[in-house]
């Protein structure tokens, strides 16, 4: 490769063409101070602090934007450079308040640091008037523009990384400042409070509001965010065993220096007053704090008794898509070896089992095929049944970046107008629940117009003929009739997707949480297979996950039909490997899935349940009924950080430690295995989940001899080595072949049929859609205990379209009853223009208004995922005095 050689401070160094002087200097170990430069942002040369001099021409160059040229003789610290640089910094200081003593940025201020490094004392220049502080009421961000140095890091972060564009420079000259559109407070703007700008601001202009600590902490621990499935790397700043601040990790390949509002400002649930600090045992209907000794003794005795009286199959374990991989491994071993049952499942059953089963049987992987970088490089991105901007912000940012700056064409398929709609080249609005028909329609167009990748189909797939036969009936007209999407739009989407050399499909719970979720996933996989987009290195399929370790919990075998790394329990050979290692015989029958456990409990067949970090009394459909069933169990143990709605029903509650208090790994939706590091000691007497499981196993007389999380992973690697051929060289991303069904790099077309869903009727004329909001997650057990998230967004709401609202005679803020055949809720109305007529929307994750209560229990026949995305409801206005 061609190189360019320059002289840098008297030394010859070489770089590649196009490199800036600053980049080469940093690479060569020469320090040039900067204020407006960040490797994730487009350099703009705004602050001029990085000035250097070219000795040949005498020119002063901003090194962050000046590319190297052969023969340059660059001085970075000659007296001329230093004079200029000092003057520039002094000019900044002359318009900067002298409030350093009381400024929250303290010694983290980069301007102060640079001034100090250059020995700048008092500034002799005339003072320039400063901007006033902006009055805002949001609990996340504080703007004091008197300290703004106009470096535009916040502006570029907002536009280039997060692609929200809430702020830009406003006005000119001395009046210039970053401002929102119409100069409104952030809470009235597009700002999502992701905190990326705060993390980048070099001065005290942007700071965290309602902060726990003002100074600089001694300890910073890099770990993985515990909220959604993206798995952003975060830095926990710790002061006196207290997590006082969370910032994005700059070098993470997932979040690239960004975060979302939950990651930045939601982690204070760690120190919530509600944290359980002692084991609780219910005596006569009241919880009493007891010792670990007593609590574990009781649990062990009761589980043993139930096992003795009713057999192992009367016990069940519900594990956690929030706990670490190692803890999930221990939990499934506990269920299988100690309790002796395969009745073990995890919370991802509620939202992503369809991905596992659907993708497993078609492409042979249990989830996402490629990583976020690949997604960002795609030519076409089809987002269907997902609102990643809210549910998986880091993925949302990547999609927006691709669409806005990298020329990717976005096809959005969603009945709701989500934020991505404004980035979409094509937005299809199918009727709710008709995605399978639409996907088949797209496949048919691709087939009919010969846009398929024949070579890839011939070499890497089978069952193509059956697939084609099945498509015959899905003519454009037929698909239009079912989905309501105009035929030309269907054809356009098909062509756009098929003609791109790298086309990605991103989907979420809008596919998987239907009764036909598995079919939907297979239909998407078929599209990818048809066009050669299912393989790594091009396009790909991205199955978004709702929770931090949904992928990992499944990989670790917290499933009723799989041992770790998708070894089938029915396969005696696979079982034998584990049996030999663990010295027990393992049950070979498929166990019960989450919802089946509850059903069997209702029939009295399940007597004892051990729930770790899940909250079925809120998260399961018909949650009112679920709570009743759980309350009626002979024995219920709940292990959690909080006294959740489920924990309140338990006989024994075991206090678990948060993610910040333990070691291990989470696997994000890409399949990236990332470290979770301990930042603080467990609160009170709480213990990490893994530790509790180990202690419990010991009390039950079947100790599991692991002394560290690493040991657990080493054992797994020994028992089921990861196959080299899964296609991922980086050790970070690990993917197991699913159930040994398919050969390497081979896939199978799975013909799927559209099954009409129940229609709305006179009694229940509205279709209710559910989804997440940016500010909360899961059942809200953590986010509702994060003080700032709760303050900003505490009330559930029901979104109703303008037309429907008028018909119902309701106004914004009115209270209405939302009534399904199963239950009813009361909620305030938000009028919106994002919904098609006859459709209303309610967010999940508000514990006081659990929308899951409205759903009846109906399961996907293959994945056993309950339908939780759409149901039929009636809306009744509550008369103010009635």
């Amino acid at each position: 490769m061609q190189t360019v050689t320059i002289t840098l401070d008297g030394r010859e160094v070489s770089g590649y063409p196009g490199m800036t002087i600053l980049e080469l200097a940093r690479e060569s170990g020469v320090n040039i101070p900067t204020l407006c430069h960040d490797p994730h942002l487009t350099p703009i040369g705004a602050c001029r602090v990085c000035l250097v001099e070219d000795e040949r021409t005498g020119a002063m160059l901003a090194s962050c934007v000046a590319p190297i040229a052969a023969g340059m003789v660059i001085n970075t610290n000659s007296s001329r450079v230093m004079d200029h640089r000092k003057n520039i910094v002094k000019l900044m200081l002359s318009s900067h308040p002298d409030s350093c003593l009381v400024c929250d940025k303290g010694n983290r201020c980069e301007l102060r640091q640079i001034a100090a490094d250059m020995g700048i004392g008092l500034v002799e220049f005339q003072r320039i008037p400063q901007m006033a502080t902006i009055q805002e009421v949001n609990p996340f961000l504080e703007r004091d523009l008197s300290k703004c140095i106009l470096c535009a890091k916040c502006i570029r972060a907002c536009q280039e990384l997060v692609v929200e564009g809430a702020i830009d420079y406003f006005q000119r000259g001395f009046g210039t400042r970053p401002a929102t559109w119409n100069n409104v407070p952030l809470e009235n703007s597009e700002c999502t409070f992701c905190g990326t700008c705060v993390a980048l601001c070099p001065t005290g202009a942007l700071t965290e509001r309602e902060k726990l600590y003002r100074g600089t902490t001694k300890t910073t621990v890099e770990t993985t965010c515990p909220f959604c499935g993206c798995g952003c790397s975060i830095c926990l700043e710790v002061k006196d065993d207290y997590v006082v601040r969370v910032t994005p990790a700059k070098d993470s390949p997932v979040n690239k220096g960004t975060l979302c509002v939950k990651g930045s400002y939601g982690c204070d649930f760690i120190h919530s007053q509600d944290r359980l600090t002692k084991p609780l045992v219910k005596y006569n209907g009241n919880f009493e704090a007891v010792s670990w000794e007593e609590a574990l003794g009781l649990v062990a005795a009761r589980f043993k008794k139930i096992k003795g009286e009713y057999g192992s199959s009367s016990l069940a374990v519900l594990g956690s898509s929030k706990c670490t991989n190692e803890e999930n491994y221990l939990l499934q071993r506990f269920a299988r070896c100690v309790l002796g049952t395969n009745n073990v499942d995890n919370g991802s059953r509620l939202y992503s089992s369809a991905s596992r089963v659907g993708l497993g049987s078609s492409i042979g992987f249990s989830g996402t095929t490629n990583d976020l970088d690949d997604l960002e490089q795609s030519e076409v991105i089809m987002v269907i049944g997902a609102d990643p901007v809210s549910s998986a912000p880091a993925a949302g940012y990547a999609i927006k970046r691709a669409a806005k700056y990298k020329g990717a064409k976005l096809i959005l398929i969603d009945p709701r107008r989500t934020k991505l709609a404004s980035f979409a080249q094509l937005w299809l609005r199918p009727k709710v629940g008709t995605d399978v028909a639409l996907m088949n329609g797209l496949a048919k167009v691709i087939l009919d117009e010969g846009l398929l990748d024949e070579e890839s189909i011939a070499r890497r797939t089978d069952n193509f003929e059956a697939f084609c036969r099945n498509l015959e009936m899905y003519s454009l007209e037929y698909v239009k009739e079912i989905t309501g999407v105009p035929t030309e739009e269907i054809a356009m989407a098909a062509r756009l997707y098929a003609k791109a050399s790298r086309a990605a499909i991103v989907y979420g719970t809008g596919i998987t949480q239907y009764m036909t979720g598995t079919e939907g996933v297979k239909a998407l996989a078929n599209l990818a297979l048809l066009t050669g987009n299912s393989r790594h290195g091009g396009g790909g399929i991205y199955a978004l996950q709702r929770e931090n370790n949904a992928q990992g919990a499944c990989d670790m075998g917290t499933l009723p039909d799989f041992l770790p790394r998708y070894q089938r329990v029915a396969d005696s050979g696979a079982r034998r490997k584990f049996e030999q290692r663990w010295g027990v015989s393992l049950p070979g029958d498929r166990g019960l899935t989450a919802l089946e456990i509850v059903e069997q409990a209702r029939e009295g067949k399940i007597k004892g349940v051990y729930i770790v970090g899940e909250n079925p009394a809120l998260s399961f459909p018909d949650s009112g009924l679920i709570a009743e069933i759980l309350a009626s169990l002979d024995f219920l143990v709940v292990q959690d950080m909080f006294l959740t709605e489920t924990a309140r029903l338990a006989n024994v509650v075991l206090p678990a430690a948060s993610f910040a208090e333990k070691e291990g790994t989470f696997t994000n939706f890409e399949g990236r295995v990332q470290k979770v590091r301990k930042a603080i000691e467990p609160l009170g007497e709480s213990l990490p989940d893994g530790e509790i499981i180990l202690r419990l196993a010991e009390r039950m007389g079947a100790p599991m001899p692991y002394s560290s999380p690493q040991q657990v992973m080493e054992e797994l690697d020994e028992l089921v080595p990861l196959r080299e051929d899964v296609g991922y060289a980086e050790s970070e991303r690990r993917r197991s072949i699913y159930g040994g069904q398919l050969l390497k790099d081979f896939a199978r077309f799975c013909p799927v049929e559209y099954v009409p869903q129940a229609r709305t009727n006179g009694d229940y004329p509205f279709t209710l859609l559910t989804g997440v909001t940016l500010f909360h997650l899961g059942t809200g057990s953590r986010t509702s205990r994060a003080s700032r998230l709760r303050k900003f967004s505490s009330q559930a709401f029901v979104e109703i379209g303008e037309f429907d609202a008028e018909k119902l005679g309701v106004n914004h803020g009115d209270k209405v009853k939302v009534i399904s055949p199963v239950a009813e809720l009361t909620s305030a109305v938000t009028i919106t223009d994002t919904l098609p007529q006859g459709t209303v929307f309610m967010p999940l994750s508000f514990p006081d208004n659990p929308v899951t209560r409205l759903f009846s229990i109906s399961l996907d026949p293959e994945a056993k995922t309950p339908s939780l995305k759409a149901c039929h409801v009636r809306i009744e206005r509550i008369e103010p005095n009635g």
Partner: protein
Amino acid sequence: MDEVKIAAEADLTRINEIVAEYSEEKWALIPLLQRIQNEVGYIPPQSVPIIASAVGLFPSQVQGVISFYAQLYTEPRGRNVIRVCRGTACHVRGGKTILKLVKQHVGLEEGETTPDLEYTLETVACIGVCALAPNIVVGDRVYGHMNPKKVEQLFKKSGG
């Protein structure tokens, strides 16, 4: 009030038509803003999101450009823009008094517009015809050698 509303809506309709011609052309932001201002007289803030989505920018970015250039306005301007010169020559020859008198006659402070949209009052640093100082410009026409009487006549005449 209703008339103003109707006029604003008519403006938006026209702006939509203009914007449609420039869709997806990021380079076209400034020509587009200029054209809207030429036709509508100003750039209504409500039109910023429409402009932004047409040229693939964020509303905050379009606002940034509008607020940067002195030639672009976000409020309606009078049919007659009065520019009173405050250049050195005009100042020496009594420009300050002329400005005071104009303010009295039209009842405006600098940068303001009459409610009936007849006049907008501005000052400029120099218009380059110092020989005629003190000067004012109304619309495209320069009025030189201004004195109190001429100011009175000028605004009586065109003010009706």
